[in-house]
């Protein structure tokens, strides 16, 4: 079956996460299969620089760990071009958005697709 590539899907997820958090952009770094933290993607050029160099922007950055099970698999960074003081609720929201990114990555990583006769989980 043909369909959008995982790169496009991940780009949409990052854009969606940025929109949901109300920030200017989002960047993603992940551990690869050699345990190296790699830059994966960003919603714009600033985010790309941030993901690549972990370089400070002129604005503000909120980075949250991405956790699968008990293992940190990467970092999601949300950023604003203007200086911004992150509130506790924004940090909490960032962590929840990180959970969404982990789920999306797991879906992209693949595995069997469950089938349920009733289609119901609970």
């Amino acid at each position, binding site marked *: *079956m043909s*369909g*959008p*590539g*995982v*790169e496009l*899907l*991940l*780009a*949409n*997820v*990052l*854009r*969606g*996460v940025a*929109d*949901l958090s109300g920030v200017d952009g989002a960047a993603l770094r*992940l*551990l*690869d*299969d*050699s*345990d190296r933290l*790699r*830059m*994966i*993607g*960003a*919603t*714009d*050029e600033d*985010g*790309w620089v941030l993901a690549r160099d972990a370089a400070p922007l002129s604005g503000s950055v909120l980075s949250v760990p991405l956790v*699968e*099970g008990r*293992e940190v*698999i*990467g970092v999601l960074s949300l950023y604003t071009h203007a200086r911004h003081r992150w509130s506790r609720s924004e940090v909490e*929201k960032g962590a*929840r*958005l990180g*959970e*969404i990114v982990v*789920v*999306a*990555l*797991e*879906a*992209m*990583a*693949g*595995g*069997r*697709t*469950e089938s*349920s006769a009733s*289609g*119901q*989980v*609970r």
Partner: protein
Amino acid sequence: MTHIDPEALVASLRRLQKAAPATGIVHHLERIVQVVDRIFGYSGAGLMFADPDRTLRYLFATDEAGRSLEHAQAKVMAGPCVAAYMTDSAVTTFDVRKDDRWPDLAPLLHPDVRAVAGVPVRLGGEPVGTLNVYQDTTHDWEESDTEALHAYAHVIEQVIAAAVEAEEKSQLADQLQYALDYRVVIERAIGYLMGKHDLTASQAFTGLRKQARDSRRRVADLAAELLGEQGRGDPDHAI
């Protein structure tokens, strides 16, 4: 413009594939819906999905009240989420228990279900279900509320599309892995047949493949068998 490094992404997904248990699309959706009410501060959330005959069915809800909302709509085939699916647009209600559009719903609902919003979840541009949220008080939904829900539904759509894509990719990966594992065996068998019968590589492979097809075996299995039988001096049946 979003930038993605495909090579780094594949390397990271490979790591994740080894580390994370394969749980399937329903589990992914369940986890992602459990997050929605915590992000937006709603009382609960749920997902409904359409059958092949376009009947909307309950898939998942974060709590008992949310489950009553989805079951009730599935039973009477009406409600804000059914309407969101049918119209492919956001549908909200200030208080579903007193909404004249769906008078049959109230008796079936948990008392905590009051304000409800539903937005379509699409795949390939077509609605396949709805993301539903409810509040345990009346609520005037604003455009920013439904915009955020649309954005969340869009992320859900990416997860569904990724699962669909990954499912096929994993099958492809299995095939590729199989080919890689047995490529050496097949090449050795082709070399053996070329020398034994003075064939070109193409002729040897074609003969090997035909024999495999005729005997309903995989080429790699036949090649392994052929090489295994070399020691016993009877490989000729392979072509």
